[in-house]
């Protein structure tokens, strides 16, 4: 299954659960971020990218991996937006898509029918769908 960029962005929005439409692009988050100078996409740009559904920009940025989760950005945002939550959403997505299924459905015929159903459920990665 191919996930479109739009769907990825929707998933990131759900995970981040912060209201990016409130952002006025003032840049206070970036100005407060202690590691902004190491980031390729500054916190306010991460917010803007999510607002515009540019999931690939978010997923390819190095910023979430520089972020210290200090929450300075969220605490000082005048609009109650949390760039930190977007950083976390990207990290979660990356972690969840690590590792594939433990079974290949096409090879199931090689197993005998005693294979417990529960093992099947456990062997497929649910959370990267």
């Amino acid at each position, binding site marked *: 299954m191919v996930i479109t960029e739009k769907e990825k962005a929707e998933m990131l929005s759900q995970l981040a659960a912060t209201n990016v439409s409130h952002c006025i*692009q003032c*840049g206070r*988050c970036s100005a407060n971020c202690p590691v902004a100078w190491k980031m390729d996409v500054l916190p306010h*740009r991460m917010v803007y990218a999510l607002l515009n559904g540019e999931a690939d920009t978010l997923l390819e940025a190095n910023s979430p991996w520089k972020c210290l989760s200090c929450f300075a950005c969220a605490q000082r945002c*005048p*609009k109650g937006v949390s760039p930190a939550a977007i950083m976390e959403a990207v990290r979660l997505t990356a972690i969840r898509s690590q590792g594939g299924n433990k079974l290949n459905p096409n090879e199931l015929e090689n197993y005998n029918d005693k294979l417990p159903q529960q093992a099947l459920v456990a062997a497929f990665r649910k959370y990267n769908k």
Partner: protein
Amino acid sequence: MQKIGVFVCWCGSNIAGTVDVAAVVEAVKKIPDVAYAVDYKYMCSEEGQKLIKDAVVEYGLDRLVVCSCSPRMHEATFRKCAESIGINPYMVEIANIREQCSWVLKDVAVATEKAIQLAKAAIAKVRFNDPLHPGQSQVVKRALVIGGGIAGIQTALDIADAGYKVDILEKEPTIGGKMAQIDKTFPTLDCSACILTPKMVDAACHENITIHTYSELEAVSGYVGNFDVTIRKKARSVKAEICSGCGICTEKCPARKTPSEFDEGLRNRGAIYIPFAQAIPKVPVIDREACLKFKTGKCGVCSIVCPNKAIDYTQEDELITEKYGAIVLATGFELIDLDKYGELGYGRSKNVITSMQLERLTNAAGPTEGHLVCPATGKEPKSVVIVSCVGSRDTTERGKTYCSKVCCMYNAKHAMYIREKYPNVDVTVFYIDVRTPGKGFDEFQRRAVEEYGVHYVRGQVGKVLSDKDGNLTVFASDLNSGKHLMLNPDLVVLACAVKPAKDARKLASMLTASIDTNDFYVEAHPKLRPVESPTAGIFLSGMCQGPKDIPETVSQAGAAAAKVIGLLAKDKLMTNPCTAKCNEKICSGCLTCTKVCPYGAISGVEKEVITLNGTREKRVVAVVNEALCQGCGACTVACPSASMDLQGFTNKQILAEVDALC
């Protein structure tokens, strides 16, 4: 038999788009006593009103129901229309089928059904309507203006010039407000004091104006045209009649630890002080909390040095009472506290200042005689950073949700002040967006960039750090270049949000004037009645109604004055006849009603009444003062014997409406 006429308005497509008006007409025609019903495109138009009048004549109608917009909109129109054809205006009922029906519903069947229900209720009520006759009340030809800033001064001058008496009530020792503190004013950069002080003098000299400074509103009662006001004139501890304003006392006072309010804490003042040289009145006041004589009993220097023997330590607050026809609120604004913005360094470094402090630092009459220096070092700065929107446009609990409106313009002004006098000082303004609508305003801001070389950076300052030597580091972002900036200015100026005066909420409740969630006074209609409060006789002028600059404040002040003059020019006001009335036959004299009436309109009076048995008896009954009663209805529900009724909204009328709905 009653003859009720029902008139259903389409309001163009506002009502007719959602309500089947013809079906409403058909439905109400079936109701007994409805002698005539019709629908029309615009009932409020001249044609529509003619249709009503013709129907009254043709069908001999004696009471009318108009199904239309909110009664706030056109009840008065239709009452006048009825009156012109000889029907008492209070025999008209409005069924609001627009705001309460067509505008809030989408489904035609549902909306039509609701419109019919509302019409039925109004018809049920109108059966019990009685002709009512408004009384008259006198108008006291004197106005009170609360707040003596530019708004209050201008309103008072305009009212006084029209020939009416006006009193200005100012809590500070002088009139003038914030404009007196400002150095120069945008967009023309003329000296603020030079244009304000002549107005202050005009107000002081005007034969129709009385100024009460260092005074507070103590109590208010009454109603439009007839307010009874008590003013507390706080003890100045100086006899104003004999003080010559020489100021010797203020120089010799040894208690000099109090930060000057007028100079925004940039210098200290004595316990006895005159806020600034052009203060009106130019009479000092003793701050009793700071005065050694009041605190320890020792000192008395001022009374020794005063050549006129004007100092009076025994002076007491004085209460004065006065009657007014109208009251204008002009209590202005303050800047927000910056405690919640610790990261910006205010309070931690003296070189982080507010914009108002900068005004004092550049003002020739200020603590540094207009010499711009960093407060911590006393040295001229080499570079200055100005931060916009501090606490404005902030929806978190730290700030204010609104745009303070004046800061973008004064930031440009401040940048130009500095570059004009000190061309070598670098000035950077951080902004989210530059908001400069207004005549000549955008041109003014562009001059800062184009002629004065001020750096405008789109982005915000995140934090301001101060090292142990007091050097500042500003962390900011430049959104246009995508760069993260670190600057080392000598002075940081915070353009912080404005908020209404501290007492705005208290005054609003004393005057029953409405305020919004930010404590700005609310206007009666945001577009059509912008200088009137919803409470009759209370008017609004200046920043107390919302952020605005001096040109806007002055226009609004004039508009408020025009409204006051319009009111004071009337000899009599019609009073609302929908007041409470006591049925003395059944009133037991318990006087519960007097306890719930917020306007003090009811009193217990001993009089001879005819009882239910027809006998005469002398006892206490509740009597309503119709001039004071505002028709709120509290007494009618509190009365245990149901003897209180609200004319125009009697228990019988309300129950008839409810029954028609159920």
